[in-house]
């Protein structure tokens, strides 16, 4: 079984700086971690981080990120509206994604906490393994304009797995 939920309304903040900022944020490219506030900080790219699922309002998140000690050029941008965010949860989700994504999603290569950018059905997607209560779960971040295309592809691939769509 697998489920798909639309979490697009969840706050999303992009941080750009030199990769050194990862030391302060506690995570580097390819990984994700929950910070002290509970927000998910994703090493989104080389010198790029995406902060998701923050419990605080976006302005507070931005203020906190801008206050993080760092000397270089830093851009903190609210991209809540620019990206769609889908959560795919369930034991079969790696198999489901294997219909669309060429990445090895096995536990040893893409364990919980892994973050990567990958083609999913031909779309550039940020894929974050973010298990929920021990259950396999992926967050998929995609350009908002492609949200419907991505959702349609996941639903199509999910028929075989009894995908339940929420939201």
């Amino acid at each position, binding site marked *: 079984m697998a489920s798909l939920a639309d979490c*697009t*309304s969840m706050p999303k903040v*992009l941080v*750009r700086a030199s990769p050194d900022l990862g030391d302060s944020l506690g995570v*580097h*490219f*390819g*990984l994700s971690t929950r910070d002290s506030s509970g927000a998910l900080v994703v*090493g989104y790219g080389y010198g790029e981080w995406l902060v998701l699922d923050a419990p605080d309002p976006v302005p507070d998140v931005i203020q906190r990120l801008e206050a993080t000690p760092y000397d*270089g*050029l830093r*851009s903190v*941008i*609210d*991209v*809540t*509206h*620019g*990206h769609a965010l889908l959560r795919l949860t369930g034991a079969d989700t790696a198999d489901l994604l*294997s*219909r669309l*994504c*060429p*990445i*090895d999603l*096995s*536990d*040893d*290569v*893409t*364990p919980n*906490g*892994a*973050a*990567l950018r990958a083609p999913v*059905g*031909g*779309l550039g997607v940020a894929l974050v393994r973010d298990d929920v209560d021990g259950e396999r779960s992926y967050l998929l971040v995609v*350009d*908002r*304009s*492609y949200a*419907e*295309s991505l959702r*349609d*592809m996941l639903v*199509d*691939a999910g*028929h*075989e797995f009894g995908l339940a769509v929420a939201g």
Partner: protein
Amino acid sequence: MTSSHRLPPQPGEVIDRAQRFTFRWNGRPYQAYAGDTIASALAASGVRVLSRSLKYHRPRGLLSADFNDPNCMVTADGEPNVRAAHRLVSPGMSVSSQDTWPSLRFDVKAANQLVGRFLGPGFYYKTFMRPQRLWPAYDKVLGRFSHGGYAPTAPDVDRYDQRYAHPDVLVAGGGPAGMAAAVAAADAGARVLLVDEEHHLGGHLRWADAEGLEILRELRAAVQAAGIEVMTDSVVTGRYDGNWVSVLQRSVPGVRERLVKARAKHMIVAPGLIDRPYVVGGNDLPGVMLSTAVRRLVNLYAVKPGERAVVLTANTAGDAVAADLGRAGVDVVRVLDARQDEDVVRIVGRSAVRAVECSDGAVVDCDLVVTAIGWTAPLTLATVSGGRAEFRAEAARFVPVGLPDDVSAVGGIVGDGSTDQLMEHATAVGREAARRASHRAVALAAGVPHARVTAPADTPAVAIPDLRPAAHPMLSLGRTDGIVDFSEDVSAKDLKSAVREGYDSIELAKRYTTATMGPSQGKLEGVNSIAAVAAATGAGLAETGTTTGRPPYVPVSLGALAGRSHQLLRRSPLQGWHDSHGAAPLYAGSWVRPDHYGDPAAEVQAVRDAVGIIDVTPLGKFDLRGPDVPDLLELLYINKWRKLGVGSVRYGVMCAEDGVVLDDGVTGRLGPEHYLMTTTSSGAEATYDWMERWLQTERRQWRVHVTPVTSNYASINVAGPRSRELLARLTDLDLAPDAFRYMQVRTGAVAGIADCVVWRIGFTGELSFEVHVPAGHGLHVWKALLATGSDLGIRPFGIEAQRILRLEKGHLIVGQDTDGLTQAYGAGLDWAVKLDKPDFAGKPELVWQQMRDDYLRLVGLQPVDGAVVPPEASQIVEDGTRIVGRITSSRMSPTLGHAVCLGLLAPHLSSAGTTVTVRLPGGGSIQARVMPELAHVDPEGVRLRG
């Protein structure tokens, strides 16, 4: 028809006698059991002729009784070229023979046999070359003789899809060796994918004795217990660099065919061996079968293949088939042992086997001839992996050598032995494959920050027991001429004839005769083809060599290659509204946009007279931050940017290094080190690449972040003389002309939505405000504008109206009014090019262009007859034929009631007032006048600055 040839239950049978049903063959009902193939069910009812051959339309029956069988291509439920010896029959299935008329039994085209001696190799090439003018007629006639079924005309509604897999070890072949290797690899900790062409694992053990069947049961249990992913009715179709292995998977519920793209760390090739046909006169008559075919029919499908049999054997498989036949109640009237120099000279019959002429002169009446004269090792997967085929004369077969480190081979293609010996070898290979795969996994994970692959213990390589092919007599071509390639109707005589004509290499003879080029693709006829060529040239098989195997190993449907059909469309947050309000969709690049809402001319009029709104979300948008942004802008744009103040917007044009116009748009300064840039919709990605190229390679010292934010905003252009009045009702921003001037930007709330970016620009030529709204609130603002402006005559307008408006105003569209050669001066951008800047992309070329006078210029044009709109791309000609320009944009102007155009025109004709000739695509021509400005409406810009 009843199953008159069905045997009592057999120990290894795969049919389910509890599920009996009816299907139809050439319109008549037949009985079958679940698990039967089409061919086994027909054979169980005594059907012996399943097809007619390609060229001579000779009757053909079962030969190998598996996927490779060339003699049982049928149409099943409308699907042509179904392999009846492999496809499982299903209740109600309608099966018919192909390319026979009026019937399979009485086929008129069998008359080809009468002129067979004229249909030798090269017949078509030689006969239909001349006269050339008759080729269309030849083509028509020959088309009627093309073999195979007819493609269905109805759309294919079946589902085809794809998936990716990442096994540590992929085993291609599910016989005893393949299963043993898979289990050993899995036991050593590897993730294993086991692929087999058959519907059930087991290979030749499926028709083994009781002891063999027990081994099979144990192996299947071990495969299941080891957690191995098994794909039956599936084929490895190719292996590519990096062990990228393609697998065609069938029998997936709800999916017709699935292409599995497997990235295996190690591949084990285990295809087993193929029973080779004997080339002798009459070898294609129905009733001539390979030993493995008979063993399948008897043991898997409980079918009695004949009544009186002659067996020609050169190995233990032939010996065993005689025993199987005896058990099935077939009278084995003669066993000819090739190891004792006994032979079949000729097989006699007309529509089926009637007798055999033996080498001792005896003529034996029979209806079944079974041959077991040698093995072909299918080496395609090994050779496409980089290995070579090496001929072992003593064993009369090719073997693989020189495999790369990440590919191994097990089973019959390596050598012979008892089942235990084959499994012992395969087990060692499987363990070694797992060991190599574990090292490969570590290497692959080295660059992956999140991978947690544990380095394996430094264990030594597994010792692989020796396995060699056993001695076997070389039997291929018999004492009389027979068919070599059953798919293509090519005989040994044909191949020898080809050699005599000079096609004396196997690759040339193959192409000249088409031997090995049919559906069997050399699996049955490959070695015999080589033997025939070798016999004609006098060379040995080793010297003659093999043809080159290439993927795919079996036919792959276009559906499987295509996978699911997903249309990746970008949609603005307002697209749903456009769809529900009758907008005609326009597919522009990856975006779908509203072209118009039914009446573009009225939409234009609304903008000119009152107010209109358009969704311009696809405009490329970039957030630029950092102290060096002005330097970047100065470099990218041909005009000046350093003095752009906070709150101001400027139009800019980018050129490539060759001075050709690349993109245009406006950029606004939102803060001291914060800018928002827009680009054309179609040029956004290229512009982003262009900027990053400079920042990442040429100007790495600049402190600038460029972040794409196209989808962050729903962008709405509010245009028309009443746009200020409308927007003022929804925002607290001061929109007064002096407070918010043309080419300025403000941020604030619109319709209650904070953080909107509003700038005052004028692409339509009217007073207009472009509002960039956080995308999630775009629909709210759109609806608020429409509701609030209802008393102002508001209406939405689409791309077509926008194109008319901008054309009336003479605003160029990059890519529409320019092409890959149009430099800035040619695009009428003289005013923007600032050669006094120290540097910018394209400057040297533009300096040179300014000194020349030989380039096309963008001009405004109006047809003399204002009712005629010359189509875009119409050529502008001089002296009747010489092309001196073209129309780049043209529309009927609702505002002027007159056709208006932009065009690129030779310099000597580009002066205002010149009349030029425009040739229309359908013939004829019109006169058009060069206008003093690009703008046809409001050239002074009074309206947009209002």
